[in-house]
């Protein structure tokens, strides 16, 4: 027995080493949407191309942090999914490679980067996912505005993810920055004595006073501070900040909380998967944010060719139709992809004027500020 032990050890070690040796014809995907979608996508891609594909699921803030940390020696070749804000932040930091996929031509211009650093693969709007049974017990209606979430009856009954790790949560944060910027603009215009109509006109034309938006159309410090004030109040009602954006939806489904701030398609997914009588999706009437799920090639990644094959493939209608098979009902960006029946129709939702570039540029600093100012605060 004793003599055999070293031999055994060597065998075991070889077993560990062996899979690492095979580097050819592989692809490592950094995947941000929900796990089952990642599985379905990588399996379909592998079947289609014969490229052995593995993935790691990380929330988008987490992904950004990981890419930054491993920039010298990236472990992933392509990053698929998660709000474009994070892709813009990554582009800013030189973490992505330019690639103009021939298949990207059909994608609408506002859903891709003009410089080819990222291309949208799906679109979806933020919403509130509420457990009707719990709301009944608390004696309140499903929230239809951001202010509704501040109701003291909801204390400890709201959950969202942490904006440092989650793109969903960051979208929620930036939505409120945008709303605050709009409000500041309107207040300033009113103070200038403009009429209701004039204000609407000026807002639509982007002729700002500078109170809410600066010259570049980026929200001002005041707008950001006001959003932080909102989240400081909301913090009193938050049970906990999860790491992944869609997790609060499950908490709502299980009845651990009443309201989750998540993407509406993640709530629809839960409804389809067994929570149909329990969960209800609502939208804030002031306006809600939305995401363009991005995709980008990682600069210096180990498998650049396979990454491009993935990139081209992921933009095809066939690949974009995979989401619906696992109840991920985001809207596809390729107009030739059939739109799933249950998908949220964005035209029926009041969307804010979400500035992805401004969001991306501010992402890291805002996430850090949130982590310092809001998340660690005690609640009553």
């Amino acid at each position: 027995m004793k003599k055999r032990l070293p031999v055994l050890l060597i065998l075991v070690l070889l077993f560990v080493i062996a899979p690492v040796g095979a580097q050819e014809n592989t692809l490592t995907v950094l995947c941000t949407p929900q796990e089952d979608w990642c599985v379905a996508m990588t399996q379909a891609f592998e079947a289609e191309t014969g490229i052995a594909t593995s993935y790691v699921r990380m929330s988008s803030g987490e992904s950004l942090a990981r890419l930054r940390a491993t920039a010298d020696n990236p472990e992933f070749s392509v990053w698929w999914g998660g709000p474009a804000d994070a892709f813009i932040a990554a582009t800013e930091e030189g973490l992505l490679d330019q690639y103009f996929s021939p298949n990207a031509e059909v994608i609408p211009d506002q859903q891709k980067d003009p410089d080819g650093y990222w291309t949208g693969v799906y679109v979806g709007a933020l919403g509130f996912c509420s457990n009707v049974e719990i709301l009944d017990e608390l004696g309140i209606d499903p929230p239809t505005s951001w202010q509704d979430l501040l109701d003291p009856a909801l204390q400890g009954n709201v959950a969202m993810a942490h904006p440092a790790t989650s793109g969903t949560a960051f979208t929620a944060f930036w939505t409120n920055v945008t709303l605050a910027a709009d409000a500041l603009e309107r207040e300033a215009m009113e103070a200038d004595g403009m009429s209701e109509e004039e204000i609407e006109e000026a807002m639509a034309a982007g002729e700002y006073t500078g109170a809410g938006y600066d010259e570049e159309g980026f929200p001002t410090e005041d707008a950001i501070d006001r959003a932080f004030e909102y989240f400081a109040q909301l913090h009193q009602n938050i049970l906990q900040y999860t790491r992944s954006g869609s997790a609060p939806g499950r908490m709502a489904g299980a009845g651990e909380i009443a309201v989750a701030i998540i993407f509406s398609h993640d709530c629809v997914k839960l409804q389809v998967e067994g929570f149909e009588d329990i969960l209800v999706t609502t939208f804030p009437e002031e306006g809600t944010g939305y995401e363009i799920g991005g995709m980008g090639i990682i600069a210096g990644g180990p498998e650049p060719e396979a990454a491009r094959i993935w990139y081209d493939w992921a933009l095809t209608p066939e690949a974009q139709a995979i989401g619906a098979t696992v109840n991920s009902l985001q809207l596809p960006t390729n107009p030739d992809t059939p739109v799933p029946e249950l998908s949220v129709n964005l035209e029926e939702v009041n969307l804010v004027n979400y500035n992805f570039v401004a969001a991306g540029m501010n992402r890291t600093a805002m996430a850090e500020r949130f982590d310092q100012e809001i998340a660690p605060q005690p609640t009553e």
Partner: protein
Amino acid sequence: MTAISPRRYVDQFRRIFQDPILAISLIVVTVFLLLAVVLPILAMIGESTSPEGRPLFAHYLGTSTYQTIISNTVVMGLVVATVGTALGFLFAYVQVKVKAPFKRFMHIVALIPIISPPFAVATATIVLFGRNGLISKGIFGVRYNIYGLHGLTLVLALSYFTVVYLNLKGMMQALDPALEEAATNLGASKWRIFRTVTVPMLIPGLLSSFLLLFVESIADLGNPLVMGGNYEVLSTRIYISVIGLYDTTAAAVFSVILLVPSLTVFIVQRYWIGRMSVVSVTGKPTGTPQLITNRWVRWPLFGLTMFITLLIILIYATIFIGAFTRVVGVNNDFTLDHFDFVINGYGSAAMTDTTTLAAVATPLAGLLGMLLAFLVVRKEFLGRSALDFAGMLGIAVPGTILGIGFLLVFNNPIQLTLPFGGAEPLTITLIPKLTGGRAILGGALAIVIVYIVRSVPAALRAGVAALTQIDPAIEEASISLGADNARTFRKITLPLIRPAFLSGLIYAFARSMTSLSAIVFLTTPQTKIMTHQILNEVENGRFGNAFAYCVILILIVLVAISILYLTVGSTTGAERTLEGGA
């Protein structure tokens, strides 16, 4: 102690180095501990005191928000340590001193928490006692808020009390019943004996259990993440700093703040409590202990212990049933989907990776621990107690801290550039890149090393305890009969400490399979670890998958323990002689 001349140190080393195998062992053990334990910790401290780190100390220690987090951490440690020690004491006391039925049953149930990932308990607790819990809501109709300190206390105490139970049980069994008999004969009541004889003799054991639980609970990451609610502690802050912001400096500063109480407690335990031995156990206890039969004492104690036993069973039953249920409490249909996901889906890689790495780490940790124990107990040399201390650091230092230390030290290859060699200076890679993207062996080596570091302390303590009980004369006899040191270690020492070696191995494997905090920053796309995957599933609310993972993980550990018993546990003559003849 009299002063020792430097000559003597030199002599000690000369004696060790006369035997090449002994010398190599000493060097290997020392180098390993320096690289894998001391260096990462020093790097982390270095990072925290860098120009960027120093102002953060002032900020964190001076802001009320962070002061709350620090006090939360300490309060949680104290409360869990108190409750957990009380639980362990209760179980041990009932087991050893009280006449009660179902003792064997309660004993086995109390052992279960050792072999399961800690957050399994947290998840099941949410299902049972959460806002919409099967018991809290289903039976009592209360939307009970389990999130926060009280929930954490329950979960952490149940997860960690086993070690206390085993420690105290061992101590109580070793207590000489003659002392209590003497007290009885002198007319003391049972209560008075309990107060003035039993408890005082157990004080070192109680204190060290308390401190152990304190360290374990402030280092715990999984449970505060899952059910901390708004109760923020340092370990979750460290986690967010790394995974959300990749701010290793902030993480290092938090780590040092967390390291202070951990190390203090460890040192107090080692150098103060370790020496305050109230009772001296000499030889075998004489006579059989008197069991408590007073029904006013017996039945309440039994009832309480049984209640907790049933609670543990309930929790593990929830895990088991939950693994086969679509969504416990919401949709109770039977399903095998969760197992399909874990076994055939993307979880299968994690299953084989984790088991393989733990299987590689286990024998190495066992051998290293025994070797270290042998050197520490049997040999005399300068730095012996420092070596022992370094060996124990793996458990004294919270896992997250070790993980960050590894990221800081091994994220780049450690290279030596030779000053000569013409135009292209010769560069030798001393240690390849171990962590992060494109690390050697896909990061597997780093994880194996961390597993070893975390497991060595238990093997070391078991080895030390076993060796101190074996008369060195047996080994000396072997040497004088002509065997060298290696042969003696292999043929005499190792067989004699085989039970300790076995328990070291079992502990190492279970510990490796269930550890999260130390490896959470070290997993890579090529190397997936089950505990990390469980955390992912739990965090995403897919409790069914998490439960299926837990069931499989528990099964793997049980199978491994059986295999270890069958291979290593088979007794040779020597051990039986020792047991029978001593």
